[in-house]
Structures are given as C-alpha cells and as structure tokens.
C-alpha cells in the first residue's frame, strides 16, 4: 500500500469522526445520558429543589405499583394501543387497497387522506374535544340531538371516554399507515396481478398471495414503530380527557407528567422507567428490522 493511501484512510477516519461528532454529542448528552439518568433518579427520593438526594432502592416502584392511577395507566395504555393499532392495521390496509384501485379521482383522495396527519396533533385533539363537547354546541351531540333527541357524555363517562380517545387518535393516526402501505403496494409489479388474473385468481387470492407478501416488511416496520410511539403518546389523552374521568383514560405519559407537576421527580421517573422493559423489547425488534433494510 502506498503511503499516500494510508494517509487518506487516516484522514478519512478523522474527518468521519469530526462530521458525526455534533449529532453524536447531542445524542449522548440529550438521549443516552437522560436515559441512564432516568433510571438512576427513579431509585432516589429526588424532588425539585431538594438539597439532598437519597438512594431509596425500589421504594418508588413499590409505591407507584400500589397506586390505583398507575394500575389504571398500565391497563389503559395496553387497551388503547391494542385497539388503536388493530384498527389502524385493518382499516389502513383496507383503505390503501381501495386507493390502489384503478378509479377516477385517485390522486385527489390520496391528497385528502394526508390531511389529518398534516394537521398538528394538538390541533387534531382539540378539534375532537369540541366534536365530543357534551353540550349541543358539540358537533356530535348537535347531530344526536336533532336525530334522536338525546345527548352523550363522550369524554366524561367512564364507558365512552376510552373509545372516544381511540376514535380521535385513529383519525389523526391512520393516514400515516395508509400512505406507507400504498407506497409499498405500488412497488409490486403489475404483471404479477395480471398473470394471477389470467390464471383465474379471485381478488381475495390476489390480495392474500401477492399484495400481502409484497408489503409485509413495510407492514411490520410501520406496526412496530407506530406501536412504540402510540404507547408513548401524550397529546391525545392530555388534551381530550387529562386521564379522566377518575383515571378511566389515564395512560403512563400523562401520569408521569402529573407526577412531574407535583415536583416529586423520583416517583414520576419511576412511572416512565416502569415502561422501559416494553420499550426496550419493541425497540430491539425495530432496530433488527430497520438494519436489515440496509
């Protein structure tokens, strides 16, 4: 090897580190360090402005595990994520297939689907808060009043609050799935479908044996990523119900935020840290999937 090439490799290595350094420093300081720090403070009695911080082992965890709000938040987070993801997956596939047909106005409808997702999440949830408004000023109750002479407490009744949060979250979240699925569907070669049609395959068979295998990787990636973010979403519950009525929609990010407001950050941190095992597991699979893409 010529000496000049060696220096090129060396200078490349130095340059490489220098170029990646700004992002790396940011992430070490503001992601990795807080991550470790969160675990550490969840084992302490830290409060905002406290002079002394004591290590108290699992006391925070024992305390929050015994709390009704926490038990509710685990249960609710699970219910919310399960139903929301199931709806987004099934209806997302359905709508994407519909928009993948040879119909007039396809481009228009595709642009339309993007709308709820283009809207800021906090705007979408405020908007739904007023669609659900318990008075006749709310859109749904206005319609219910006109048609059936009745009104519903969408967000303040224990039975309806969670379904209402799920529907609103679906409205804001489904376009991301549809657009991703649609992009994947368009990557499948048309000849495959033509050949199958010639062999007399039904629409369902074509969907099952051509579309599904063609998009399964994307479906898996989207489901996994979205599950991570849905599990941790704050705005939907915060803006619609603030976790109420009496913790019926409490999820763990909202509970952690309330904990933070009481300034007992050791405890609040324990709420987030208790969710780490699930996050780590999902993230582990997501990393594997995404790196396989390279």
């Amino acid at each position, binding site marked *: 090897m010529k000496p000049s090439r060696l220096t090129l490799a060396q200078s490349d290595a130095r340059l490489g580190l220098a170029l990646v350094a*700004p*992002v790396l420093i940011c992430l070490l300081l503001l992601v990795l360090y807080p991550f470790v720090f969160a675990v550490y403070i969840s084992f302490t009695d830290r409060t905002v402005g406290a002079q002394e911080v004591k290590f108290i082992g699992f006391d925070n965890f024992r305390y929050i595990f015994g709390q009704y709000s926490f038990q509710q938040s685990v249960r609710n987070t699970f219910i919310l994520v399960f139903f929301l993801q199931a709806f987004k997956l099934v209806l997302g596939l359905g709508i994407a297939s519909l928009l993948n047909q040879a119909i007039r106005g396809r481009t228009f409808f595709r642009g339309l689907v993007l709308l709820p997702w283009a809207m800021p999440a906090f705007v979408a949830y405020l908007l739904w808060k007023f669609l659900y408004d318990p008075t006749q000023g709310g*859109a749904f109750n206005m319609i219910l009043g006109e048609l059936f002479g009745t009104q519903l407490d969408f967000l303040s009744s224990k039975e309806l609050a969670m379904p209402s949060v799920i529907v609103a979250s679906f*409205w804001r979240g489904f376009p991301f799935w549809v657009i991703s699925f649609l992009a994947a569907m368009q990557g499948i070669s048309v000849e495959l479908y033509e050949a199958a049609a010639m062999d007399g395959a039904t629409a369902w068979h074509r969907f099952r044996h051509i579309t599904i295998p063609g998009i399964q990787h994307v479906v898996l990636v989207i489901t996994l990523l979205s599950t991570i973010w849905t599990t941790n979403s704050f705005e939907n519950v915060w803006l619609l119900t603030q976790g109420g009525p009496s913790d019926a929609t409490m999820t763990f990010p909202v509970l952690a935020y309330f904990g933070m407001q009481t300034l007992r950050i050791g405890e609040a941190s324990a709420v987030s840290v208790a969710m780490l095992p699930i996050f780590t597991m999902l993230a582990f699979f997501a990393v594997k999937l995404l790196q396989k893409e390279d």
Partner: protein
Amino acid sequence: MVTRLTTPQKVLAYSLLILLALFILFPIYFMGITSLKTVRDIYRVPSLLPINPTLQNYEQLIGTWKFLDAIKNSVIVAGLTTIISVFISSLAAYSLVRLKYRFRTWSARLILFSYLTPSSLLFIPLAVIIAQLGLANTHLGLIFVYLTFAAPLSTWLLMGFFRSIPFDLDEQAMVDGATRLGALFRIVLPLSAPGLISCAVFTFTGAWNELLLGLIFITSPELRTVPVQTNYLITGDTVRMGLVMAAAVVSAVPVMVLYFFAQRFVVQGLGAGSVKA
C-alpha cells in the same frame, strides 16, 4: 392499478370513498365554522352551518392572547431547529455512509436508538439536565431538546438518500481535485435536494407541533410557542370553543400549506425511513 372494476364494484368503491372523505373532512369543516362563531351562537343556535360569521375570535386571539408573539416564537424555534438539524445531520449521514472509522457502527446504532426513543420517556431527566445547563425557560433550551428527535430522524433519512447516490460521483470529483467536504457540498448535497426538503419539512412541522416538551421547558408567557399557548386556552377556567378553534386554524394552516406543497417529498421521505407520527 390492479384490474378494471365492474360497475357494482365501482359503486361500492365510490360509496366507501365518500364515507372516507366525510370522516376526514367533517371535523375540519366543523373547526372552520366554529372559529367564525361567537360563544352565544355556538350554544344558543347550534347549527352545522356558518351562521353570523365573525372574525371576533381571531381578533381576540391576536389582541388578548398575543398569538402573533406565539407564532413568532414558534417560527424562531422551529426554524432554527430545522437549520441546525439539517446541517449537522447531513454531515453525520455523509460520514456514516461514506467514511470508514472505528466507532461508525456504534454511532449508527445510537442514532437509530435515539430515533426510536420517545420524548415521554426522557422529559423528566431532560428537564433536570436543561436546568443544570442554565437553559431552562429559553428558546435555546427548547431547540436543544428538539434536536433529540430531529437529528436522528434527519440523519436516518439522509443516510438512505446518500446511499442511493453512486460512490463513483464523489470519487470522480475527488480525482478532479475536490476534497471530501467539497464532494459532499458540491455533489452529494445538491443531488439529495429532495431528501433535504423532506427532512426540513418533517423537522419544521415536528418542532412546530411539539407540546409536551414546550409545556415543561417554557414557563414565561412571552416565550410560549403556539401549541403551548393554545394549551393554556383550554386549561383556563372558561373554555371558549370558538376561540380555541380559531387558534387551531391558525396553528394548522402553516403546516398544512407546507405539506400541500411538499407532498411529493413527504411521501418520498415516508418511504425512505418511516417517520415519527
């Protein structure tokens, strides 16, 4: 694209599409008309039509609620986050795709891990760290924490775009006497313009829309960003639906316009890396 549809199939498809359009558009329509109504009209004359439209809510939003200041704050925070993030992410992505060095794999892993880590897991320790850095209640502090979601996403997206540019092009430029950085700025970046645009759109809208961290880090009313100021419209004693809907319209319009014009890049970016939603 699949096969031609028969007439009954077409009828079914269009019925479903119309239902879908109603589901999407009705809430948006309601937001628009409600923002144009007075409190009296909203409750006394419930209607799905824009009766007695007035700009009163918008005037109040700008007058009493100083919404223009919030917009200015959001533009500063989201704009600076975008510029800084796209710049440092381009450097990082180039380094990770084109150069070989010892910590490369670990760096890529950390970026992917950060990309997946939701801010609701980190906001408590972040608040402590930002306070220790003396950046609590400043726009700079907010920009800093926004980089934690913006930079990993942009780096990840740009790595995909850079990979699709033939390595020969860089090497050709270097044979012609360009340095590595010259190749990055004169060859790779211009060819990745669509990628840079989708990163900028995602970063700007992400920062423009962000509520949780804004709520935690900004305590002075005059520093509030749009989502934070809007949040205080609904946590007050009396919630005025028309006013909140006006705030919603004003907050949504800039990003929706941005998405409309950048639709192509948004969809392309989605395909390239699956964006946080």
